[in-house]
């Protein structure tokens, strides 16, 4: 039996609220399928399952806040499905008579609530109100048995809790405050635990800029590449050469990752940021990276990210140069071990062969965890990045 548990969607996450199940008992699921929606401090996330099989049982009902690692559902994998089928001959004889005892025996503590919640249907507006008022939606009763739970039902439940309305309200900060808190937790931990070292280098990006300009001239407006895209590819390739910058520091040891999942720092409208992953960035074409980036930013802005994007970036890339800053020395997102920053691309005087020429130049930075790597290796990474950017036609 495969145990599907609440995933950690980032170092700062302790618990998430199960908003919706997209599967039910008996459904077949595929690896990578989105099976649930979980509300985190950073918005709603589509949670994927990484095992194929048949849903045996949903353990947690919607509306509940669940700690990371807690069991959400049980899945029968291929072999087990066969085993269960073999045992079934005995079962059909008794189900009618002993339905209740069987359920109780299978899951004593939760059987009652699970049975109720299976029938509980909640209007999205009611769920939102319950969240605002700090009411446990699972405890709200519909006006009539079996009816959809409405805002009115939630309000009634809230009134029943009246003695402490002020406390209940202030205990549920608004979404922006939650996002601030999530960032505060992760960044405080980073600065407390990670001995950062910082490197910067100016790179002549004339070649890659002109290459991109020529490339975009051939393309219609919907197929154009953003300036950051070739940099994403170059960063991912350079990380392959210095693998100790790509991965995690966990339990006192470095855990380099074979895959490069590039976490793109994306600002959210109205404040806050997330850095979800573009998977296997080192192996994707520029067109694919652009398509993935477009998809990712669109979903960040509309608040629908997938769990794997939140949980498995192996490094972060920030492009603050967009906003005009010359260089950005990032704070590492734990348990990652590095963050790469791209500053503004601008024309600057550049000395070449004894003469001053005008070149497009960008300041590229690295903040890395000194426990996992040393400055010398960090320097090699920036040198590799420089080298790769001089041959943009090879980045495709």
């Amino acid at each position: 039996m495969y145990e599907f548990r609440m995933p950690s969607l980032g170092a700062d996450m302790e618990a998430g609220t199960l908003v919706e199940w997209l599967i039910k008992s008996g459904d077949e699921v595929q690896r990578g399928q989105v099976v649930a929606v979980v509300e985190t401090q950073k918005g709603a996330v589509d949670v994927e399952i990484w095992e194929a099989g048949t849903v045996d049982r949903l353990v947690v009902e919607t509306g509940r806040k669940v700690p990371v690692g807690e069991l959400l559902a049980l899945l029968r994998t291929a072999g087990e499905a066969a085993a269960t089928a073999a045992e079934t001959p005995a079962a059909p004889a008794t189900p009618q008579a002993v339905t209740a005892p069987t359920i109780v025996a299978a899951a004593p503590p939760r059987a009652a609530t699970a049975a109720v919640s299976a029938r509980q249907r909640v209007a999205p507006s009611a769920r939102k109100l319950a969240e605002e008022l700090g009411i446990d939606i699972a405890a709200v009763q519909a006006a009539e048995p079996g009816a959809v739970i409405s805002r009115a039902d939630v309000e009634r439940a809230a009134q029943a809790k009246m003695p402490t309305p002020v406390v209940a309200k202030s205990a549920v900060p608004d979404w922006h405050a939650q996002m601030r808190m999530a960032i505060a937790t992760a960044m405080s931990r980073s600065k407390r635990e990670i001995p950062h070292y910082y490197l910067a280098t100016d790179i002549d990006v004339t070649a890659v800029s002109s290459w991109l300009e020529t490339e975009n001239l051939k393309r219609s407006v919907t197929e154009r590449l953003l300036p950051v895209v070739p940099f994403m590819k170059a960063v991912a390739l350079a990380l392959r050469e210095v693998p100790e910058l790509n991965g995690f520091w966990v339990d006192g040891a470095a855990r380099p990752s074979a895959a490069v999942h590039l976490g793109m720092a994306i600002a959210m409208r109205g404040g806050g940021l997330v850095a979800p992953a573009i998977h296997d960035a080192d192996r994707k074409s520029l067109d694919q990276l652009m398509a993935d980036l477009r998809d990712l930013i669109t979903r960040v802005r509309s608040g629908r990210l997938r769990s794997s994007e939140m949980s498995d970036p192996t490094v972060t890339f920030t492009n603050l140069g967009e906003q005009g800053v010359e260089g950005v020395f990032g704070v590492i997102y734990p348990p990652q071990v590095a963050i790469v920053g791209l500053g503004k691309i601008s024309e600057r005087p550049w000395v070449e062969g004894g003469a001053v020429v005008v070149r497009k130049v960008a300041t590229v930075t690295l903040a890395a965890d000194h426990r996992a790597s040393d400055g010398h290796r960090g320097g090699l990474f920036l040198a590799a990045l420089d080298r790769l950017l001089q041959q943009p036609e090879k980045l495709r």
Partner: protein
Amino acid sequence: MTSYNREQIRDIIFDALGAIAPEVEPALIVPDRSLREQIDIDSFDFLNFIIRLHETLGIDIPEKDYAELLTLNSAIEYLTRRCAARE
């Protein structure tokens, strides 16, 4: 081909901006100041802005002309001229 006057172009620009940055209040935009200084948009938003203008007006806007779209006034000027030129 449809022809547009300046008022229509202005409305189309606001529609495109509104789709990208819903919090934008058209009345508060200073017409000769940089749009990006007044609205919180990045290069991705700007590309989507160009794509929307392309879809609505049916004109292709090359990258080298992006500078002409930096303020509201210059954008109206540029788009009106481009739309008139194709007739």
